[in-house]
């Protein structure tokens, strides 16, 4: 078994906000091919797409060797995005949903998404949801599937830290990550089942392609899976996070967890593989209650506050953070635990502003633009 590089890649999606109405004007996604950013616009009056055509933005975070490099790259990308937004008279927001935009997405989306649109029809049209994708380098494919099986367990815990979509269409959904609900309505999403090995996993994807269920492996979007082309494990359970320090902390946690799972394997140990249904139960609790709720510790079959379980997880993975040079980034998790995740912050702002969604947008923008 080749020892993994634990390289880091971060892919983000940004919203462009009209400063007065706070409406969503457009959004920017990294394209599937990873060599360009793609802008989707709300109206013909704006023409971000053309602006961006002049390659204002150097895209696709290249692979970072460690979290320190990832930090530099993330800041550079976000700074470029901010300048791009500002030069077009917009503000920048990086949350899982826009709190009140009634824009339902458009049919003239990027070519990569057009196929999804045809496949998923109305569901795709309502997906105006923005996620964070974290790649961790796990070159050995067998190991990648092994880590996928076991790491599924902690994804709900990680999601609790990374919720930022409590509002949708101007309503308090009562959930912390409405984006998760929107995404999981698509086929081939959510917590995956476990796979006996890479052969089985590959066979599954292969069957889908051979039977024209999907044009290629990119159409499978589970919360965690080996990337179809890069030698990485992709984790896409997180909402986009406005505060870049949160993004780095969550990334560091994901990386250290992969390292922990790998280490167990090398010592002939394994984190237990649980049934999808049990993990999905915790995911639901994360989606609904976020950090303020309880998750189930399936080892002892008891509920415990999500914050306690996250501190337990931190204790397990902190030794690996030392080796990975990510201790300071990981330390920020404690800040999130005490402060609340972004969704909880949004709800606080909303409450103290007497239910004013614009105030929530202002908060998200301020958090996003706080780059220094």
């Amino acid at each position, binding site marked *: 078994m080749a020892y993994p590089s634990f390289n880091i890649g971060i892919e983000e999606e940004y919203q462009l906000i009209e400063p007065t109405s706070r409406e969503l004007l457009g959004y920017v996604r990294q394209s599937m091919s990873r060599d360009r950013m793609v802008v989707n616009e709300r109206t013909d009056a704006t023409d971000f797409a053309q602006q961006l055509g002049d390659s204002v933005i150097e895209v696709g975070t290249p692979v970072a060797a460690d979290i320190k490099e990832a930090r530099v790259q993330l800041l550079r990308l976000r700074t470029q995005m901010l300048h791009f937004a500002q030069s077009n008279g917009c503000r920048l927001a990086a949350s899982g949903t826009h709190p009140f935009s009634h824009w339902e997405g458009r049919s003239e989306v990027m070519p990569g998404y057009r196929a999804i649109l045809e*496949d*998923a*029809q*109305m*569901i795709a049209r309502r997906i105006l949801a923005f996620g964070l994708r974290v790649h961790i380098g796990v070159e050995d494919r067998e190991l990648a599937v092994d880590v996928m099986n076991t790491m599924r367990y902690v994804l709900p815990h990680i999601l609790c830290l990374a919720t930022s979509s409590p509002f*949708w269409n101007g*309503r308090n*959904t*009562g*959930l912390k990550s*409405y984006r998760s*609900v929107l995404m*999981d*309505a698509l*086929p*081939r999403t959510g917590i*995956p*089942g476990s796979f006996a090995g890479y052969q089985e996993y590959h066979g*599954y994807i292969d*069957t*889908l392609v*051979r*039977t*024209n*269920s999907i044009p290629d492996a990119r159409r499978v979007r589970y919360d965690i899976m080996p990337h179809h082309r890069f030698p990485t494990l992709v984790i896409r359970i997180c909402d986009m996070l406005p505060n870049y320090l949160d993004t780095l902390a969550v990334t560091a946690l994901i990386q250290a967890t992969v390292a922990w799972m790998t280490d167990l394997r090398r010592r002939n140990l394994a984190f237990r593989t649980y*049934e*999808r*249904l*049990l993990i*999905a*139960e915790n*995911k*639901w*609790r994360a989606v*609904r209650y976020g950090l303020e709720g309880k998750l*189930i510790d*399936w080892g002892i*079959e*008891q*509920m415990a506050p999500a914050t306690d379980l996250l501190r337990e997880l931190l204790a397990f993975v902190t030794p690996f953070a030392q080796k990975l040079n990510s201790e300071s980034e990981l330390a920020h998790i404690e800040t999130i635990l005490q402060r609340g995740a972004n969704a909880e912050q949004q709800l606080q702002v909303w409450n103290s502003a007497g239910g004013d969604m614009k105030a929530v947008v202002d908060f998200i923008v301020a958090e996003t633009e706080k780059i220094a």
Partner: protein
Amino acid sequence: MIARPSLSLGIEEEYQIVDPTTREMRSFITQFLDNERVIMVERELKPELHQSMVELGTPACDTIAQLKEELVKQRSFIIGLAAQKDLAVVAAATHPFSRWLDQPVTPLPRYQGVLEEMQLLAQRLLIFGMHVHVGIADRAFAIDAMNVVRYILPHILALSTSSPFWLGRNTGLKSYRSVVFEDFPRSGIPDICRSVADYDNLVGSLANVGVIPDASKIWWDVRPHHKYPTLEFRICDICPRVDEAIAIATIFQATVLWLWKLRRKNLTFRIYRRDQIEENRWRASRYGLDGKMVDFGKSIEAPTCDLIRELLEMISEEIDELGTQTYIAPIERMLQQGSSADRQLRVFADTGDLKAVVDHLIAETKEGL
């Protein structure tokens, strides 16, 4: 020895109550509500979360013939009851245009609980299904049958699709209901359960930690019922036409018999991964009878209608044995002319008017009573 399943039958249906003038959904249940239950003319009406929704179930029946009789009685009853308040009944899985956010919630404590837990998602659940029970007393065989029968659920869903519209729009899907319901945890195609103990452990784990009170909160597309000795099929959109609902129940009954006979010969239909079956389920939601599904045995795509004909062929001996040939006949008509979703889309294409779709549904719901 595994006892021959009783193959007794029951159908639960969830109906929409609509105003025949505006064609909008209307609150109804609270007008009859007394102490959480409504007992009228020896029938129990079960209030649902939404006031414009009513659930009714037939008693257990020994034969398909009896089941049809009971379902006709049940529908006649609810249509009569609604008519007393100048309202009409629609048996379709979504209302073409009524908005879920405008629908009042039934003021009972248990629904406040559901609302509290599921929040906006609970309100969005203004969807209507048909649940078919087939009697299997032996729990081990019920779990075995559940694993296997998962494979054909997408095929049956394709036949039952009746929810192409949502909030006044053509969703492009044939069963939008089946997608909305997946927002809920513990829904969709279940994973494989290796044994009764495996299933009990799973439910026990959830109940032990208090996330569910009992197995009634497992909302899978097929499940062993928590109270009755039945396997409950929950995949279907409710069918506007009684004869189509009965035809689907006929397939379920014969399939269970077929599986039992296979089992006694030490054979089984192959058991596939949930992800694979979900692929076909998605195709059923999206394309209904009009699309293709994956034949995982051959690992090829084939038209859904062909695969359903294959299924009918496989269970034809059991249909003969049960003497239910006449009840299954509407399936061939559906394969040629489409499901309710296709008919609704045709009405809409002809009239451009969703109110005409509601009228069409009111008429089909009464057909054959």
